Structure formats: C-alpha cells, structure tokens
C-alpha cells in the first residue's frame, strides 16, 4: 500500500487535519481509521466507488455527522460550522436539484452566500452587492445574472453554486460530485474554472467525484477512498486499473488468461430460432 500523504508538508501549513477518524452511519462502519492532511493551495481529488464513504467524509468534515473515533481540525479548530464559517465553502450535490418550481435568479442565489450567523441581524450590509457581482463575474455568469436558476444548464447552475461558495470568500472549497449530469463542454470549462481558482486565487480545493478521468486531468493529488484510504499521492503516481484492483482487494474472476471472443459488430446478425 502506497502512502504519500505527507508529500508537501514542507511548503505550507495544513488547513485540514484528519486524525484516525471512524464514522458510523445507521449502525454500519462507513469510514475506518482515516488519516488525511490537506495543505494550502492543494487541489485534491477524492475518488472512490459508489457508497465508499466519500460524501460521508465530507459531511464529517463539515461537522454535520458525529465521529465515532478520532478528530478533525480545520484551520486549527475543531470541525464545526460555527468555527469556520466564511472560510470553508461547500458546493453540495444538491446543487443540481435546486428547486425548479420557485423563481430565484442567479444574483439572488449567489447573494445567499453572504448570509451567515453575523449578518442575520445586520440590516445594512455594506459592499454586499459588489461582492456578489465579483463572484458572479469570476465564474463567468454575468450574462445570465438576472435569469431564473431553473432555466440554466446543469453546468451554469453548478457555476452559480460555486459562486455562492466564493462570495463567502472561502479559502477552502469542498465540492461534492460537481460533474454529475454535465456534458463534456461544461465539464471542461468547470474544471478549468476550478483550476484557475486554485492557481490564480490560491484556493484550496477538495473535490469528490467518481469520474476518475476528469479528476486525473485536474487534481494535483488523488485520494482513493473505500472505507479507508487505499491510495494517497500525486496524480501521476495514481495506480493503473490492475494495481487499483489489487489495492481494493478485487480478485480476478477468471483463472489464467481471459479468452476474448471474436467480435464482429459490422457482420451479419444471426437470428436464432
């Protein structure tokens, strides 16, 4: 098992430290003994099969799920929304199913990002409008700024939700499956946007996806999760499929070499009676 989690410990302080956590959900162990450190400016792709605990890990980072064991610190404090609001941006999976039956413009959706525990009782929030406009510009949605969110494409909607996370001026952005249901053009431009955010604006990004190919093209570091961490290291060292199968403990079904059948898709179709 390869563990390169501490590659660039030298460069910048750890934003997120996960110490030997275990998480149970409805009586079942979903995560076991997870250790993970995230440093400033990293772009991490968290991958794993369905049900491997990726979303669970994110929810525990956000302090929403209780830990059975271990501890999580974000920005040096215990993980809880109260301790990091404004510094952590969360782009949820639910972004793709924002309500469609109620009107909400992009500007209003992004504006929701400015609401937090402190601003509730502030009747006048100076500079709020400019912040919202900046965030919308940075994700390239200024043309649809007053359009109803339900009329946007999947990619645009995801951008709008990212703008909502940006408006909080979050330094650490967590994304849960942002690529779901997206065509290749919007996927590429979204990945480009995330890359720019990481490099030009110094954001730290942790993205969950089961789109291995997409993550491989963008992330600096990949973490493969299935109950515990099976691989953690730079993207270029990510194992090939066979090694991955070994890491995951998937045994070959066939004994010896696999016999491939002759396959001729253009040939005549045989009708069996």
């Amino acid at each position, binding site marked *: 098992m390869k563990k390169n989690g501490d590659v660039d410990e030298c460069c910048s302080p750890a934003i997120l430290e996960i110490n030997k956590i275990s998480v149970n959900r409805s009586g079942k162990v979903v995560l076991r003994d997870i250790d993970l450190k995230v440093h400033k400016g990293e772009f991490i792709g968290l991958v794993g099969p369905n049900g491997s605990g990726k979303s669970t890990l994110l929810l525990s980072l956000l302090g929403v799920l209780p830990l059975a064991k271990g501890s999580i610190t974000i920005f040096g404090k215990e993980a809880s929304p109260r301790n990091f609001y404004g510094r952590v941006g969360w782009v949820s999976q639910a972004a793709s199913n924002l309500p469609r039956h109620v*009107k909400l413009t992009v500007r209003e959706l992004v504006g929701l990002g400015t*609401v937090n525990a402190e601003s509730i009782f502030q009747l006048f929030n100076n500079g709020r409008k400019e912040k919202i406009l900046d965030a919308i510009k940075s994700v390239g949605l200024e043309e649809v700024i007053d359009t109803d969110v339900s009329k946007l494409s999947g990619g645009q909607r995801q951008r709008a939700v990212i703008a909502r996370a940006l408006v909080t001026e979050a330094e650490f952005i967590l994304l849960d499956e942002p690529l779901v249901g997206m065509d290749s053009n919007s996927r590429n431009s979204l990945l480009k946007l995330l890359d720019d955010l990481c490099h030009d604006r110094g954001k730290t990004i942790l993205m969950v996806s089961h789109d291995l190919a997409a993550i491989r093209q963008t992330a600096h570091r990949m973490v493969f999760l299935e109950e515990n961490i099976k691989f953690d290291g730079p993207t270029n060292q990510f194992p090939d499929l066979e090694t991955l199968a070994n890491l995951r403990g998937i045994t070959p079904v066939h004994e010896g070499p696999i016999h491939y059948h002759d396959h001729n898709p253009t040939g005549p179709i045989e009708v069996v009676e």
Partner: protein
Amino acid sequence: MIRENLSTLYSILFLVSIGALYIKIEIGEFYMLFFTPILESIGPSMPGETFPYFFTLEIFQRALISAIIVTIVAGFLGTFLLFRNLALIGDGLAHVSFGGVAIGVVLGSTSPMGYALVFSIIASLIIYELQSREILTGDASIAIFLTGMLAFGLVALRLDGGGITTDIEGYLFGNLLLIDSQSFNGITLICTLSLIILLIIRPALLATTVDPLTAAVQGVPTKTIGHLFSVITAAVVVSMVQVVGALLVTSLLVTPAATAQLVGRSFRSCFIWTQIFGFTSVLLGLYFSAENDTGSGSMIALVAAIIFCLVFIFTNLSKLKSFQSKYGSLFD
C-alpha cells in the same frame, strides 16, 4: 447542543411574548386609530351598497383591517411554503386549530382561540421535526395531524353533546363579523410581530429554505430559523382561521404566492406580486361577498382562484395561440 437549546428558547420566548402582549398591549386599537380616518375618507367613493360599510362602520373596519394584514403576512409565508413543498401546511394547521377550538369549547373556555394557538404551534413544530429528521415527508405528517386533530375535535364536541353549532361553523368557514375587539387585538398583534420577525430573518430563512446544509455550513442557525418559521406559520394560520375560516386558509396562504410564480421573474418580484394578488383577492372578495350576501371567506378564496386562472391563461396566451393554430381546424 447549545444551539439546539437556544432555538427552543427562542420559540418559547416568542410564545411567551405573544401571550403577555395579548393581554397587555392593545395593538389593534392603535391600528384602528391610525387607519379609521383613512378608511372613512375613501369610504364614500367605494362602489356598491353594502361594501362602503367596510370603511365606515367600526365592526366592518376591524374586519377589513384584519383581512388585509393577515393577507400581507400570509403572502410573505406563502412563497416560502411553496419553496418547502409545504403548501398544504396551512390547511393542516387550520384543522389542528379547529381541534383546539373544539377542546376549548368543551372545556367551557370563552376564548377558544388560545387553545387553537397552542395546539397549532405544537403541531407545527412536530411537523417540522418529522420533516427535517426525514422520518416522514411534509405532506404525510400534515395529513396525520390534519385528520387526527379534526377527528379529535369532532369526537370531543359530540361527546360533550353540542355538536356543530353556528359558532363552530364560523371557525370552519370564517365569519368576519365574529371578530370582536379582543380577537382583533390578537390577530393584529400576531401578524405585526410575525411580520417584523420575518423581515429580520428573511435572508437567513431563504438560505435555509433553498439548501439547509449549505446554510448551516455558512453559519446560519438553521434550526432556530426553522423553529421560528414553524411557530410563526402556526400563529398566523390561527389568526387567518378567524378571517377566512379553517377550510379556506390555504386560499390566502398559497394561491396568491402561486399566482405570483406565474408572473414574477425573481424571488423579490414574486414577493411583490404575491402582495398585489393577495390584496386584490381580499378587496374584490369582500366587495362581492358584501354585495351578494355570501360568506366572505369563500368569496375571497373563489376570487383568488379565479385570479390564478386568469393570470395562467394570460401568461400562456402565446402557447394557447399556437395550440389553436395547430388544432383549431380539427373539427371543422
């Protein structure tokens, strides 16, 4: 943990302040003082024979003011309820409040609305918890409370020997003229307080409604907001029961907001349209009910529904035209 306790504390504080103020401050009288001159000055220019009385006679003035203020708050709540897929919570809570009224009557209380208030608020909080803990969907928990409390009220009334009397009918269908100065004070107080709180928590409430988890990550106390919203909904529904009746509460709570969704382009514009449609429904409803001597609640509900239909047809006119050009000659 502290956060959860805080939210319960807030809710209790809200309840207590309503209770205390209910007895002490007669905010309704203040409204009357302020609005009577205005109403009386525009009264003579109003059309119809009976309708101008709404502007000149005290009992009618009370009815008019409470109908209007209830509509304002209802429109405010309605948009959020649509968002949460809780459109029928008004109906559910109104039936619960009917159960409360029945129990109040059986216990010999002179102001059974107090019972209605307590029962509705408890039911509303339980519905919220059931929904947010994903034990039941919103509509299922509403259905249980609606039928359960209605049945409880009916059984209690029957066992007591009274059955459904004209007073009880007033609660079911609404009777504006039953609004005496005490209940008028109650209605205006609840609505004013709710309106102030809603205005303050509006951004946080919207954030919570759109996506509770994201809002929680941003630091919005979502639980407190949810509890406050539930309590306010219950309190407003109970005051609406007195205006339009338990069976017709949803008409003011949801219909104007739903109509606004057809017209508005943003959340803010939908908000304003909701108020316009609500206001029109109430005024036209009162006018037609006064002139034709029908129940005010039912006429308001009917007008609201007709407005929805008209707006729907109007906004879809282009689609209708293309439909006509396609199928118009089908039976020629």
